[in-house]
């Protein structure tokens, strides 16, 4: 794009972000403060993820952007266009083709490879913020690995509800040291973070924090022995491709309580259908 540097950010800013990224990788799960810049997109729209992606991206990269698991959600479209415009990189909707995947709220169903990088957009990097709003305090807690507050919260959940009631942004312990927000992905996706072959980078623009999980790193969702972590998904097969192990969107199809459950990962669903898998909706149509 005329008048702007490759991938929008100036080189000085990229250097600053790159230094933060390297420290983040060296200290898995630790939130590294960085001089987040004001981007031409609003805070909350992925400014952190965009800055991380812009600092990582090269001319030969292939970029995939998803929001809610889908490539065609408006904000994913907007961010993909931003990079197509400012970096001229090739973009794709196919998980397997991408070298860099920027995501909001999901991890693709297809297992990521060690030559891929996933960049998460993070609205709130501090996993303790609901329990202690002061970042001066939470910083001290991370320094001491003092996570008693979170354990008490989870314990109270069990005492009150008989189970842990967190269903997304479910806190994890990284490399047995740092409590970390996985970003607001559904708890269903948490196990994918554990020993993931791909490098995981997290950018929080408004809160000015970057953090990372190196490949093959232990990422444990907090739980109790007698109340183990249980990922949740709707107990249905995908209506389009019949998948029984993917995370599902619930679509309201009429005003009589009709629901259709379909894969949230649109690329995953499309590939399955291309491979001949058919769900109940497809079967119904074929019968009509």
């Amino acid at each position, binding site marked *: 794009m005329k008048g702007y540097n490759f991938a929008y950010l100036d080189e000085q800013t990229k250097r600053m972000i790159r230094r933060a990224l390297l*420290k983040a990788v060296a200290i898995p799960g*630790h939130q590294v403060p960085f001089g987040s810049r004001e981007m031409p997109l609003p805070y909350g729209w992925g400014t952190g993820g965009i800055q991380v992606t812009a*600092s990582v991206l090269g001319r030969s990269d292939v970029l995939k952007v998803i929001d809610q698991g889908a490539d065609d959600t408006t904000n994913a479209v907007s961010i993909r266009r931003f990079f197509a415009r400012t970096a001229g990189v090739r973009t794709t909707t196919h998980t397997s083709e991408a070298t860099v995947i920027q995501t909001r709220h999901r991890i693709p169903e297809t297992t990521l490879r060690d030559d891929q990088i996933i960049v998460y957009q993070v609205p709130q990097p501090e996993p303790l913020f609901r329990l202690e709003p002061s970042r001066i305090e939470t910083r001290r807690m991370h*320094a001491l690995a003092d996570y008693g507050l979170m354990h008490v919260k989870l314990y109270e959940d069990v005492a009150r509800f008989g189970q842990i009631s967190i269903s997304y942004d479910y806190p994890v312990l990284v490399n047995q040291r740092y409590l970390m927000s996985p970003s607001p992905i559904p708890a269903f996706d948490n196990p994918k973070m554990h020993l993931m072959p791909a490098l995981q980078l997290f950018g929080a623009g408004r809160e000015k924090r970057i953090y990372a999980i190196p490949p093959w790193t232990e990422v444990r969702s907090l739980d109790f022995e007698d109340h183990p972590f249980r990922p949740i998904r709707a107990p249905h097969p995908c209506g389009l491709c019949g998948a029984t192990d993917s995370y599902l969107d619930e679509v309201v199809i009429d005003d009589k309580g009709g629901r259709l459950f379909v894969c949230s990962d649109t690329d995953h669903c499309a590939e399955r259908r291309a491979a001949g898998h058919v769900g109940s909706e497809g079967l119904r149509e074929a019968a009509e």
Partner: protein
Amino acid sequence: MSASIDLPGFADPVTEAQATFRAVLDAMARPGTIHRAGQHLAAPAPLDGATAAVLLTLVDHETPLWLDAEAAPARDWLAFHCGAVLVPEPDTACFAVALSLPDLARFSAGSHEAPEVSATVVLQVPALASGTRYRLSGPGLREPEELSVTGLPPWFITQWQQNRTLFPRGLDVILCAGTMLAALPRSVSIEEG
């Protein structure tokens, strides 16, 4: 002392800095794996291509730089091309360039609240992928991996173990030789293999 200031920096700064960064990022994410950098760079003596490329990529006026005596001849080149601010004492440096293993305890290891405010030591060694074998394990590695390095003294292991005990504080090291680099983040455990 040095005429190396005349040597150019990256011919295509945007592309080469990005490629070098990805090499370092990958190296840091997978400790001990070897990556290429600085193949197209006329590095100032005594720096190798990889060393010079890493510095061009990461160092600027915001990151105080310390050089050991052997690396000092590259001072002017680094000041000119990186805008680096050179500091006489290692403890205030964000980055350090050394041609032989310095005493790691002399660098900032960060604080418990800000362990990221620690030095990154760019250590140029005679060779990577040959020499003493080290066994690496930790985040980034599925199973223990081997890295061979020529030119590290026997007391390196003790120094590193010391660094490892500081975690999450600690230094991170980027090893460079010729146009190869590997990284040792503070999270990695190293034994002689």
